[in-house]
């Protein structure tokens, strides 16, 4: 399928007269410095990322877009999730299995997105590797089975997914999205249908998705046992305004063949005060996650770390505060509070606009919960300094 898409893309690029192609090249360079405090030790991890975007209108109704990423890492590149799991859990197992949970920040260069978009009078067709963004939630998106957000930086770009997507604008502000994300066969491929509409000042949508969900048994002897399950999701979301507050919500019920069904719920609201202080609050429930931290097992921790499951703890709250201290300096932070186990993570942030195309960001991550809890001390603390240079 990939070869077929690449061939189509190349053919289309070459078939259009050169004078019709105005290739726009832009992107950014993102050096990061990460300081991590774990088990009474300090570690350093740096990365340098270069992203180059290409965009061209090949004709009046045909657009080509792509981006290539190069990321190189320095410092402590080898880690083990075992070291982030509370001793209360790891002590139940032999440390000989530690090797199974190692991970390395390997240098990477990859084609993140490469797509063609055909705009027909009544619909748009997008083919290739593309970002798929679903749902109205800020920190979590129950209706999005393609991405899992980083809670310390939820607005960071998500990776591209190989897909064929059709957007049909319907009457009276309604639209229909159909998406097919091909895998090795039809059964294991992702399929999505989404109807979006508007009622008064509210946007809403209903989503149905079918895909394969990979779940790993990390407690299995000798090896991590990977199993795949058919997952059907039925969900919906909305965004609008109520009593002067911005409000949004998202819910999804997941039917998982031979595994446990589960559902997720997200409710959020925000407000900007006259002083320009911005406040956001989100509540998230994941029925598959545990409500008692003493029940968090090895599988729960590792499925959360490997992003197989969006949450370790059942009920939690995300709170975001932002304030423009000056016209170039924005301070704030977010708080993650597990209502299930009472643990808290603080994520202070500072954003400085150094130049029109240069930004500096400082993101802290301080876990102040008790050992063994979702945002407990076993997670360590970190400080990330990121600069972004756009070109």
């Amino acid at each position: 399928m990939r070869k077929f898409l690449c061939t189509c893309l190349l053919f289309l690029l070459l078939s259009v007269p050169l004078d019709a192609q105005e290739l726009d090249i832009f992107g950014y360079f993102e050096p990061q410095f990460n300081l991590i405090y774990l088990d009474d030790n300090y570690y350093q991890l740096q990365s340098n990322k270069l992203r180059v975007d290409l965009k061209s209108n090949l004709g009046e109704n045909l657009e080509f877009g792509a981006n290539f990423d190069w990321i190189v890492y320095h410092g402590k590149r080898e880690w083990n999730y075992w070291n982030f799991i509370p001793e209360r859990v790891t002590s139940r197992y032999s440390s000989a299995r530690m090797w199974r949970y190692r991970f390395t920040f390997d240098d990477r260069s990859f084609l993140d997105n490469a797509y063609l978009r055909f705009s027909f009078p009544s619909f748009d067709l997008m083919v290739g590797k593309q970002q798929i963004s679903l749902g109205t939630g800020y920190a979590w998106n129950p209706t999005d089975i393609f991405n899992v957000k980083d809670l310390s930086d939820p607005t960071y770009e998500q990776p591209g997914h190989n897909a064929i997507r059709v957007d049909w604008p319907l009457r009276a502000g309604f639209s229909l999205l159909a998406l097919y994300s091909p895998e090795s066969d039809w059964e294991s491929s992702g399929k999505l249908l989404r109807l979006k509409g508007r009622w008064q000042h509210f946007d809403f949508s209903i989503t149905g998705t079918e895909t394969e969900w990979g779940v790993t048994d990390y407690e299995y002897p000798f090896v991590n046992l990977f199993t795949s399950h058919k997952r059907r999701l039925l969900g919906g979301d909305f965004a609008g305004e109520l009593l002067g507050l911005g409000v949004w919500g998202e819910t999804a019920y997941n039917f998982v063949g031979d595994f446990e069904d589960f559902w997720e719920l997200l409710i959020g609201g925000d407000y900007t005060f006259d002083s320009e202080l911005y406040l956001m609050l989100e509540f998230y429930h994941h029925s598959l996650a545990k409500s008692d931290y003493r029940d968090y097992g090895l599988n729960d921790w590792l499925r959360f770390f490997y992003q197989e499951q969006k949450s370790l703890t059942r009920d939690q709250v995300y709170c975001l505060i932002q304030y423009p201290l000056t016209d170039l300096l924005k301070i704030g932070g977010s708080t993650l509070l597990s209502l299930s186990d009472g643990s808290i993570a603080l994520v202070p942030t500072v954003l400085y606009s150094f130049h029109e195309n240069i930004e500096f960001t400082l993101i802290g991550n301080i876990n102040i919960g008790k050992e063994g809890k979702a945002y407990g001390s076993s997670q360590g603390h970190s400080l990330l300094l990121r600069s972004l240079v756009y070109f």
Partner: protein
Amino acid sequence: MKLKAFTPLIFSAGLFCAGSAGAQTNPITADTIIQRVTRVMNPAQSKGKMKMTITTTSKKTRTFVYLAYAKNHGEKTLMKYLEPSRVKGQAILMLNNADDIWVYFPRTRRVRKLATHAKKQKMEGSDFSYEDMGAGDAFIDEFESRLLGEEKKQGKLCYELELTRKPKSTSGYSKLVMWVDKESFVPLVIDYYHDDDSTLLEKELVCGNIEIIDDIPTPMQVVMYNKLDRTQTSMELVEVSYKVDLEDDLFTERGMKK
């Protein structure tokens, strides 16, 4: 909820109003003036390229270039950023006279709907808030107007009007004072008074360099002075056309992403 402030997105003055004040036999009322201001501020359709320069408190400048489209006398507006690279591709769609606002972020391909309160936020750190950029008939719906007299501004004889916020209005300004050119009905200066203190001048907007574009007198430069923060933002109209036929499809989520 209607928006409360001035519309510099694509600001124009219809020739159909020129000279009409002089033809009045009865004294013109404040309501008539403000209706004409509203009409001349919102041409039927427009397409333009704007350059916005922000001068910060530390005297640093930030320059943004964007395309702006408007239809149905400003009931629908769309802005698409071209520069700088940091915001390239970002788009803001306002429908129903900016009662509904969506922002598109190309880096994440996400569209976010903004609630009314978010309109108080500065747009890209400028001295214009989202609500300042909205269009429509806010001067009529949100304010009671009163004619104070006549005064010269920029060498032109102007009507001096006071607009006081109506009791149920959600405008972020308690009062506006506006000097409207008697010939073109272009508001040459608008003073914006603080939400909580009608004696505290918060911002001042000055229109200048008026040129005739497609038979419509158009201020080619608009400057918003923030009197409290001591910052300013200027908007320069690089290109503009009023003789356009914009499709409704442009003012949709699909149109934002193109």
